[in-house]
């Protein structure tokens, strides 16, 4: 399964992880829903491949980043 994080980027640049998602369609659906929330209108969102060392994988060498939204 594909593993993707959705990150929320606040106006001050702080990055906050929304969650771990298992398909691009699911991640995009969440981003669309977040964008519809007026309180979050100033935030930006990115979908990135899960960083392997943040998953439960031993000896994972590092991150791969997908193209940003």
């Amino acid at each position, binding site marked *: 399964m594909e593993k993707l994080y959705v990150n929320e980027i606040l106006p001050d640049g702080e990055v906050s992880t929304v969650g771990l998602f298992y398909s691009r369609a699911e991640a995009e659906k969440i981003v669309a*829903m977040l964008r519809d929330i007026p309180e979050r209108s100033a935030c930006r969102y990115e979908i990135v491949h899960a960083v392997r060392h943040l998953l439960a994988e*031993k000896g994972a060498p590092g991150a791969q980043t997908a193209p940003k939204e």
Partner: protein
Amino acid sequence: MADPVLAEMVHATGATESRHYAAVKPTIQAYRASWVKLAPYRDGPVNSQRVTVNDPAAMTAQIKAKAAELGANMVGVCRLQPHMIDLGSEVSHEFVIACCVAEDYEKVLQGPDAVEEEAMRTYAKCTEIATELAGYVRDMGYPAMAHHNGASEVQAIPIFYQVGFGELGRHGSLINETYGASFRPGFVTTDLPLIEDQPREFGVQDFCMNCNVCQRNCPGDAIPQDHVITHGIKRWLIDLEKCYPYSRLRDEYCHLCVDACPYIVKSYPETYKAFMKGRKQVGYKTPKTY
């Protein structure tokens, strides 16, 4: 199946239903039926004779006493914030009352079936409490809706954190210093004027940085070493693809990450010691009766 990850994994096995949910004992079925039965009563008519609330602090104390009388072990209040509401749902109430019922940790020594039955018993009790409490508030002339396993539009963990029940642990559940992570939720959202509780931090997140007991006991290796940050709070995101083969695709209930969490040791020192001795004997990562 509402969970797309589980649906994909179940369909990959050629089945149409999660093996764990399909293999349900009559007692478990009865508990599940109880919250389905109460779902239609989570909302209802509001008394047109509204009680005037001059002292929200006194009203908050009254609500907490009522919840305790109904069987809640902890009760807290906070303002309902957007991140506490399920995406795509709308709840217009101003406050949320959080209730929890603690599980009897002694059940861990009786095996996974007993642990599961206890979990379902506490979910059913939370459903009763939330339903009764919502009715109690409506009788005072304020709108109120119960949220529980039968039907809910709110997220348990952010609410539990905000009302000060505890902090988020490595295993993905909230940890309280008395109950560990062995408790279950029920909620009431309402416009009744109340006083908010505050988040409490007592070192859980720092402790989890150095403790790997849940990770060491997870048969699926689903609990990560490192964390992400969400609004300043550390979150260890559980890999469901690794968790579900043990927690959803087998008959047996898997609750090992919570059962092995050392935060329960102060309340159940002998039970925890006996349970962990058993875990050591099976090599930690082996499911209870694999």
